[in-house]
């Protein structure tokens, strides 16, 4: 049952790679990776229940926080830089 659930989660993450390859814009690809990462975290938690060892849940927490940071950095650099386009030239 638990292994079957992990298998279903991995198949769903594999289906998301279609959007990762096809995605017309960069945020689409980021969204696909973001969604697949949630499936990986859930699979790690289920795997921790399967083996009975709590260390995999800790790995899942750290993984979730790290990909959150990665998504925030990508979102920050997707925005157009206001200092370049508007503000910088006026003050000098």
């Amino acid at each position: 049952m638990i292994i079957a659930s992990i298998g279903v989660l991995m198949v769903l993450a594999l289906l998301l790679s279609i959007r990762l390859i096809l995605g017309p814009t960069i945020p689409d690809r980021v969204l696909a990776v973001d969604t697949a990462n949630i499936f990986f975290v859930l699979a790690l938690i289920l795997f921790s229940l399967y083996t009975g060892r709590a260390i995999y849940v800790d790995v899942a927490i750290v993984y979730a926080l790290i990909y959150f940071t990665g998504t925030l950095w990508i979102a920050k650099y997707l925005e157009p830089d206001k200092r370049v386009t508007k503000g910088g030239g006026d003050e000098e």
Partner: protein
Amino acid sequence: MNFLSSILIVLGLIFGLIGVIGVLRFPDFYTRMHASTICLTLTSILIIFGVIIEAVVRGGMDNYVIAIHSFVALAALLVTNATSNHALARAAHKSGVELDPISVCDKLAERKFSEEGE
């Protein structure tokens, strides 16, 4: 596994499947993000509560540790999922990702336009 957590995990997988279908089939980025965010938040709630119930039913020190840490993981997932998707949607709107032509209105663009006009 006991009955309740099996039901919760299967429901979570069904909602995950709905979310993935939404990400694959919806016409533009914002509707895809709507499908992904809502369905996957519910998926993580359901699956992690299933894991918690199963770990508490099994008993023993290791399983209690799994239950508590899973709850912390659920809190982390709920906060980070909503925040990162909000930041990503805002960044996408600012960088000019366009809405599908069948969309009715774009309140964020209207607000930005009226602020620039002043």
